[in-house]
């Protein structure tokens, strides 16, 4: 099983080069990293998984972007939105990860969305950067959202991914540290390790067999 940080932002978005990020991630216990708009590469034994990050609010536009990108087959990550939007997105083909659920309104990702995510094999991303970087009320709100998400996860067992959203090598956290941080919102260590393995396996998923005559 792979151990993947599901979203990093190297230079020029951040202050660390892709190679340096890979080097540091390897030292912290990861064997792959997901990087938006990066070519598929391997540095210092760490696999770079390319991804496209979609922050659109119109499902039609998202559908078009996925179709336009169809042949390249990177990991497709879409920012979550309102309840109806999330349900529509989860029904689209070609989406791998629904991210930034903590930024949406409470109940925008509900039991129906959770069941859909489980059925469609779409992973939900847990972004650890607000847990690491913020404090006080804003961190408490994010923890509450993640607690709700973990409750739904325990019931419907959809896939989870975990990301540090690091823009610098100083924002990266080790696998053990991620386990401890996830403990703050009651995510079990086994589930964390499973979640760290999800992003690496999402692209390898085999679809239903189609008979060509």
């Amino acid at each position, binding site marked *: 099983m792979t151990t993947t940080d599901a979203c990093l932002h190297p*230079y020029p978005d951040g*202050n*660390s*080069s892709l*190679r*340096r990020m890979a*080097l*540091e991630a390897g030292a912290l216990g990861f064997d792959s990293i997901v990087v938006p708009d990066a070519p598929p590469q391997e540095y*210092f034994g760490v696999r770079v998984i390319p991804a496209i990050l979609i922050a659109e609010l119109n499902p039609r536009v998202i559908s078009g972007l996925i179709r336009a990108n169809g042949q390249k087959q990177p990991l497709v990550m879409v920012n979550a939105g309102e309840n109806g939007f999330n349900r529509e997105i989860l029904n689209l083909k070609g989406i791998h990860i629904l991210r930034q659920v903590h930024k949406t309104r409470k109940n925008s990702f509900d039991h129906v969305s959770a069941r859909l995510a489980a059925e469609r094999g779409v992973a939900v991303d847990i972004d650890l950067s607000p*847990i*690491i*970087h913020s*404090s*006080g009320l804003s*961190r408490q709100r994010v923890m509450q959202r993640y607690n709700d998400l973990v409750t739904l996860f325990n019931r419907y067992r959809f896939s989870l991914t975990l990301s540090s959203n690091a823009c*610098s*090598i*100083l*924002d*990266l*956290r*080790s696998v*053990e*540290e991620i386990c*401890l*941080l996830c*403990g*703050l919102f009651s995510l079990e260590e086994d589930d964390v390790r499973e979640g760290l393995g999800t992003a690496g396996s999402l692209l390898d998923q085999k679809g239903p067999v189609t008979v060509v005559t």
Partner: protein
Amino acid sequence: MKPLPPTLRRKKRYMLATMDPPGIEPDPRELYHVISESVTSLYGDGKAAAIGLSVISAQANQVIFRYTRGYDKEVRTALATVTDMADQRIALRAKVTSGTLHALRRKLPRKTDTEPGLSEVEYHGRTYCARRYHGQKVDLLEKGIKRQELLYITQDDLEES
């Protein structure tokens, strides 16, 4: 005053953490405030008092903490949420824990040598002061007076640019 007998003393643990980026000379008092704020923010005053965290030493990029036995998880989690100290971005990585300071000092990892002297390099059309260490790692600090950009790259990136 007669000291407390050992059986009545509170059991302590010692933890060694490394501080990134290397080259910062941390002020132990400043570091203590940053970490205790992080512990309090995560666990509240009650638990922070029970943890009883203190900074024993902070030299080069190695920091030694003391805390009450049984709170390893809490201390490690709190260290993972430390992101800056005195307007400088840092990361603390817990390395070793031990029951005595003597045993911890025996377990200290060897100090990594930074190449003596900083060299000047050009990267993407700008002039930086480069610090090379650990073989591939290169830290670049932009030359200037205000808002100096700090970049973390590798030797390969430098050769490619």
